């Protein structure tokens, strides 16, 4: 995020993204921090934490250990936990202090793997990047390590990439999976909602990757490069847009070519705020179902390699505030917490679409699913 931030809370960071990605796996995961970073994740970045038995821990890093570079203390704690909990995987996750003192998270992971015989992944997360970067790092590491070259492809098999509770409520995730099933598409692996080690291993059996958030983009590019699996970048938002999305899915499957649907540039009176892929998909839905043009206000950075128009990089609070109050927009779709940036004199209709990565459990609004025609209902209800 940009420098001075007066009104908004900070968004979910990279280490939370790694934790979120591996949440469903039978692992022992450790955020190498004193306590606050782990508190961010368990308290505010993981809607599934309550009632779960996921073994994600804090290393309890202390000043003297940081000064002396005493990694052995953490290593011994990890070995003890692994002996007690019998994980299939061990994950080490960096935070700001390890970044400052140059802790070699990958090197420590290799050491632990050698001592335990259990696969161990290390991540140099820093708390200075967004959750989407952490999810992408985790997915890539899992794929590079565990995804096997398939003996056969599943012709109608698809992976979901970037399906994270930090962007999607449980209803939206279910709707997305239901949309696949209803259209005779077989879900091979879901990164990272309901992920299993088996699903990671067989991910390359899919014939198409469906990228549904920015965190899925780098894994999709990796799977395309290594296994030749094409990808489609779109969430099916809106009734007509979903029909077009389905056509695009079959086009990608049949032609085995990647596709990034996008709109032509035109003047917009609607602004959508959030993850770039979500914004692009809302933009496509508004165009296909209502004939409306929208600008994408990307809050977590932009993907310059993707073709498209009306893409704004709103990288800090000042830019978001200027944009929502610039007088150009009559309607804005975004997390309800972004309402606090709208000046009293700005006349705009705001549609609440909560994102856990922004407002966590503080949105004051239940999660919303905009998959398929639910988007039409969402707009009709709130208009």
């Amino acid at each position, binding site marked *: 995020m940009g420098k001075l931030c007066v009104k908004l809370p900070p968004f979910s960071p990279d280490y939370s993204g790694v934790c979120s990605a591996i949440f469903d796996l039978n692992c022992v995961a450790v955020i190498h921090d*004193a306590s606050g970073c782990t508190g961010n994740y368990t308290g505010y970045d993981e809607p599934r934490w309550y009632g779960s*038995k996921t073994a994600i821990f804090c290393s309890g890093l202390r000043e003297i250990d940081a000064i002396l570079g005493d990694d052995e203390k953490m290593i011994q704690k990890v070995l003890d936990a692994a002996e007690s909990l019998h994980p299939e995987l061990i994950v080490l996750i960096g935070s700001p202090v390890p970044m400052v003192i140059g802790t070699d998270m990958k090197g420590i992971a290799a050491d632990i793997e050698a001592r335990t015989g259990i696969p161990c992944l290390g991540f140099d997360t820093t708390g200075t990047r967004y959750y989407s970067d952490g999810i992408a790092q985790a997915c890539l590491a899992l794929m590079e390590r565990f995804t096997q070259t398939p003996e056969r492809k599943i012709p109608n098999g698809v992976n979901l990439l970037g399906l994270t509770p930090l962007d999607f409520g449980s209803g939206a995730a279910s709707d997305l999976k239901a949309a696949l099933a209803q259209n005779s598409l077989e879900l091979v692996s879901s990164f990272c909602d309901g992920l299993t080690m088996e699903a990671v291993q067989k991910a390359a059996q899919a014939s198409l990757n469906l990228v549904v958030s920015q965190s899925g983009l780098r894994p999709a590019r990796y799977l395309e490069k290594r296994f030749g699996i094409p990808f489609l970048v779109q969430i099916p938002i809106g009734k007509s847009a979903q029909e077009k999305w389905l056509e695009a899915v079959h086009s990608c499957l049949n032609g085995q070519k990647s596709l990034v649907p996008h709109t032509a540039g035109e003047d917009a009176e609607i602004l959508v705020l959030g993850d770039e892929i979500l914004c692009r998909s809302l933009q496509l839905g508004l165009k296909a179902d209502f004939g409306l043009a929208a600008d994408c206000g990307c809050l977590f950075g932009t993907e310059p390699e993707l073709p498209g128009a009306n893409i704004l990089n709103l990288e800090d609070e000042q830019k978001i505030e200027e944009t929502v109050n610039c007088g150009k927009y009559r309607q804005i779709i975004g997390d309800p917490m972004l309402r606090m940036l709208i000046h009293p004199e700005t006349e705009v209709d705001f549609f609440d679409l909560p994102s856990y990565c922004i407002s966590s459990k503080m949105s004051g609004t239940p999660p919303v699913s905009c998959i398929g025609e639910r988007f039409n209902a969402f707009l009709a209800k709130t208009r």
Partner: protein
Amino acid sequence: MNRCGCFESTLHYATPAHGGWGVVRMGMLAPESYQLFICPFACGRHGALGALKQGLKDRISYYYVDQSDIINGYDDLILNAVEELLRALKKRPRAMFVFVSCLDDLIGTDCDAVEAELELRHPDIQFRMAHMNPITLGSDEPPPIGIQKRIYSLLSKQPERDGGVNSIGNLVAVDPACELHKMLEQEGVSTLRHVSQYQDFDKWQEMARSSANLVLMPPGMKAAKEMEARCKIPFRFFPVSYDLDAVAGQYRGIHEFLRPNTAPAYDVEADRQAAERAVAHAVKKLGGLSLILDSSAVVRPFSLAKALDKYGFTVHRIFAQEVIPSDREAFEWVTEHMPKVEILQPEHNDIVKFDRRFPGSLSIGVNAAYISGSEHVVDLFADEGLFGYYGIRRLMELMEEAAETAIDLRALIEDYGLVV
């Protein structure tokens, strides 16, 4: 604890019920103060969302540093960030806490020089460099102690004393129903002051005119020592106790501290008898119901266990991550005299197995309730508002209420807005 009776150093597990006030909420106790965090954006998320939950977000801002800033040092950036922030604020605060995070302990920002320069540039505002650095937990100045020290350092030495007395360390004022207020009044004390009672910075300065500080929670000790040195206000430590005899001793101690060599002006006997009746009633009502005690509910869980055992309750389990010095004697008593009591560390990595479920229990504290799956819960956090015989009476009432009802633990935890 392991079989040797030692507390183990393991990976830390954090339940959804783990946490407390956090330094942001504590710092907000200082009236008309503002907080600016200089840190990677990630460090601010829990504090900002916690502040939103508490309705305090309009008093906190962030200046995010990136890897380049950290490498180059950000002393100058702090000065510029404060300028930028003050331009953005509609009202100038009277005091500003400039927080840095854990990583700052390792890069050597000259906090004293920055503080001095800020006060030079903005003489109408008192600046305090503050630390949200849990990396110092276990040291002599972890964040809860450091922030209290800085809060009370904003009180200026006053030329005269008055008849008031301060309570320090406790984050919530002692409940008005507590006999401590009556006792102090009859001892000639005009009022028992607490920082939470003030909205106005100037009015708050009257705490520096008080004649004495009663330290009711351990994290306030360092602040009280500094106030003694700087403002000449003497202090004594009276930690919250649920033991009838200990409370009697505390009231004698308070009297001797405030009015040495005089006869007590207030007779606490009626309050003691009321507490005794409440204890007897609760013992009868709860019968043999197993109790689980939690250091998130009471600062000294072993002292509470000892008292409850003496009263005839059945203490089954105690959750404590460590033993604080003022609870050490009780801990040793419990291990010697209550050998059947389980002592568990709530952050131990094996807690994640959730293999110590005990639905038919009553937990005093939400963290214990979450881990144990207790149907009955006393939703007490850090002895809030309790002291003396009133504290015992109120705890008995809460235990009786909890025994009669099942609580929505999830709603309770989320409503409290716990911050690690």
